[in-house]
């Protein structure tokens, strides 16, 4: 973010951050299609992915509109490189096993819901409107992810071990969700307040982990960088796959 921020450019960054997170998570979840542990999960995972891609179309569509340079949501999704993607590191992490996918989902959803709730009172009605529409679906995502994490955490010895491993693996990506920088500062006091979001997140996560008989990891290690375009190696591979057609056939309509 070399350019000097004003409220409009800050809003653009703010919108791409959330839109990129829903896009990359939707993409990751969609990788499960046809490969999940049971037919009901094939349907449910496709449904989650579909919701997230739907949110992406709204967030990136508005980002493109705010930017006012004639780009579309598709241009933003398919024609930017990783340094311009500002999704959270958490969502680009590989699916791993089904437990890791559901743990990633829960950690994200527990942030996503209060974040959207806060955005419902954003002064720009376009932002508030998208948040309003997305909340219902995301509230369901939280319930579903929490339910599965509890059942698998408190299931067999193997399922418990796998869920704990997933939590330990993903925990360092949690802190980034509550970080702030100049983009958030520029939009203050309208942007969601990290402390409040963290409180709401704790209020979902801590009792859920307790019911799942899972231990909160002790590590203080936190990974950062997604919000400013410094990603893990995983994102480049996601983009290579996702952007293939748009890159190989520039200017074609599909």
């Amino acid at each position: 973010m070399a350019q000097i921020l004003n409220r409009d450019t800050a809003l653009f960054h703010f919108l791409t951050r959330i839109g990129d997170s829903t896009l990359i998570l939707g993409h990751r979840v969609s990788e499960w299609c046809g490969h999940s542990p049971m037919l009901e999960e094939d349907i449910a995972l496709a449904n989650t992915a579909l919701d997230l891609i739907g949110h992406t179309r709204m967030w990136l569509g508005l980002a493109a509109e705010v930017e006012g340079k004639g780009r579309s949501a598709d241009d933003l999704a398919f024609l930017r490189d990783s340094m311009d993607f500002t999704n959270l590191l958490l969502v680009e992490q590989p699916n791993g096993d089904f437990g890791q996918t559901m743990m990633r989902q829960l950690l994200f959803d527990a942030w996503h819901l209060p974040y959207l709730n806060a955005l419902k009172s954003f002064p720009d009605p376009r932002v508030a409107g998208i948040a309003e529409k997305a909340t219902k679906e995301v509230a369901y995502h939280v319930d579903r992810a929490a339910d599965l994490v509890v059942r698998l955490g408190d299931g067999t010895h193997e399922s418990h071990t796998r869920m704990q491993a997933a939590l330990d693996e993903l925990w360092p990506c949690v802190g980034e969700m509550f970080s702030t920088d100049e983009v958030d500062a520029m939009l203050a006091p309208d942007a969601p307040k990290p402390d409040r979001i963290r409180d709401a997140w704790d209020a979902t996560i801590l009792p859920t982990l307790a019911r799942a008989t899972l231990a909160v990891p002790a590590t203080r290690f936190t990974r950062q960088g997604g919000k400013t375009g410094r990603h893990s190696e995983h994102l480049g591979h996601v983009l290579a796959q996702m952007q293939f057609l748009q890159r190989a056939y520039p200017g074609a309509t599909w």
Partner: protein
Amino acid sequence: MYAQIVESTGKAVKTLNEMEGEERVFQERINAGGKIEPKDWMPDGYRKTMVRQISQHAHSEIVGQLPEGNWITRAPTLERKAILLAKVQDEAGHGLYLYCAAETLGISRDQMFDQLHSGKAKYSSIFNYPTLTWADIGAVGWLVDQAAIMNQVPLQRSSYGPYARAMVRICKEESFHQRQGFDIMMKMCEGTAAQKRMAQDALNRFWAPSLMMFGPPDADSVHSAQSMAWKIKMNSNDELRQKFVDAVVPQAEFLGLTIPDENLAWNDKKGGYDFTDPDWQEFMAVIHGNGPCNRERLAARVKAWDDGAWVRDGLNTHAAKKRKAAKPVAG
């Protein structure tokens, strides 16, 4: 079709006069256009044939997720990604209703999965062909879903109630699938030379396998007569194949694509197109496990099932713990 090689009893079809008792009541109900429901008496052969037909259809739906799922992560726009996700999700839903319909006949979903995973159960040959370019996603929707609709619309009148009702739900969604496929083809045919080349190539590869979807030629499908008498098969394979060709040829013309068949010609006398039969040897090879993707498809399903075992065990164990905890203490 989605159930291409359903072997019913090899015996000659009995006439009504040769039947008595329950069997006669059963056949009379079918002749009168009535439905057979799960608790009704039915001949063993009917039950077995329906289990085969419905489970083959169910397996086809879920294996069918794979070739299309292959392009979800590479769909070219957000809208296309969403539409394809919704479509593949529908196919999983179709699998689910169909497994439920088959379960009404006394077989469990786990048993059906065992049959699929062991290679014993069949599924439609079409899903053993690869989706190599984005145009294949168009071609699958346009041709494969269209063929499915042609076969399944009459099956809404199947004598087996649960299957007929599943077909009603499924057919509604299949027509959306066909439209989105045709729409992809249209965009590509109106597009750049490279897109048009992909579209033609997809048609070249999917044409013959689509014709195979209707099953072997009538002369070779020995078990049709009984299935027709039971009203679980409404049209002959060749009849449906002809109907499909007659519908698709003008669509291909509209798209500006060439059907890969030199012998394709309008025949005034029969009021339909003459066309070359697909290679039936290839068809039998694919049905028996030796198509381009049989091994990958089956391996993907088996892997999903095996990798998911710990999840299913975990959920079952959790449920058992909850049941135990909920049990009132004996007083």
